[in-house]
């Protein structure tokens, strides 16, 4: 999949109007989502059943081809069968550290740490300082997007 697919697409005027009227997608909480889905006549547990059936079929296809089932599909199926596992930071810190060291988990997002020369309140940064900070910020963001 192209990495650009991980960047949010530009919103159209219609998208912006809908966001203003109904709220941005990223702000949708579980309770509201549940009410919306149920208003459409869909039972949330049906959604889960359908996902499980689809993943079971995906796993079956992998096995039929003599391939191992991808770990994330195995994990998701396990989760669907037994429910979400308890927080590993509290219950299994070793596995959590393994994830960090193995690269499947990442530490907090890198960002520019601002250390500016003292200025009077209300002073603006010089254009050169601002350009340097913007460049550094862009470099870090680009690096994160390519990783």
């Amino acid at each position, binding site marked *: 999949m192209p990495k650009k697919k991980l960047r*949010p*697409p530009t919103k159209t005027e219609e998208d912006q109007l809908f966001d203003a009227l109904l709220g941005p997608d990223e702000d949708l909480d579980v309770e509201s989502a549940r009410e919306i889905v149920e208003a459409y006549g869909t039972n949330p547990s049906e959604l889960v059943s359908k996902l499980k059936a689809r993943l079971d079929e995906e796993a079956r296809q992998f096995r039929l081809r003599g391939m191992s089932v991808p770990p994330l599909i195995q994990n998701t199926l396990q989760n669907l069968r037994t429910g979400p596992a308890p927080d*590993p*930071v509290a219950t299994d810190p070793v596995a959590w550290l*393994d*994830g960090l060291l193995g690269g499947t988990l990442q530490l907090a997002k890198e960002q520019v740490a601002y250390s500016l020369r003292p200025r009077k309140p209300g002073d603006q940064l010089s254009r050169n300082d601002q350009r340097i900070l913007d460049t550094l910020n862009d470099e870090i963001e680009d690096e994160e997007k390519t990783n």
Partner: protein
Amino acid sequence: MPDSRFLYINLEDLLVRLTATALKWFKQRQCFKSDSVLPGTGASAEDLAQNALLEILLDDSLWKPKAPDEDPFPVLVTIMKHDFLDMIKSARYNRTEVVDAPDEETNKHGYISPKAAILARQLHSVVGNDPALMEYVDAVLVCGLYKREDIAELLGITPRQASDRRAKLRIKLASWRESESPKKGE
């Protein structure tokens, strides 16, 4: 080394949020039920949500969480949105404009654009008997306010109350679409 991603997430909550988000986009395209397909694509809101999740499960480079219980919802919404845009750009999807707003309607009521006029026509029939929702809709479509805080200030309410009206509108719209849509087999 075991991979623990997707072991700690409440999948029902995640799936419900994804499906509700997809339903919002389908609503923009005049699809009224969670399992009704986008014309010419054969895909429903439920399919769109499942497909995005499957993409991330099959390509483990797409989501590397910073904590075991990190919410994959934002990245899934982005993937889903790209899939949705690809679908509506596809040659198989021939969108029929069901409604059209003439310029005079836009000008007469002072809507900010023809698109706003089309939306107003649809939404006023939904919220017509609810003055609070009506003024909320007009704050966006007539006054051109997009931020919750700006809308709240115009209406003389708190941002929290503005959010409540927005939530009420979401539910009302979802319910209305369901009741107004043609039943299967009709």
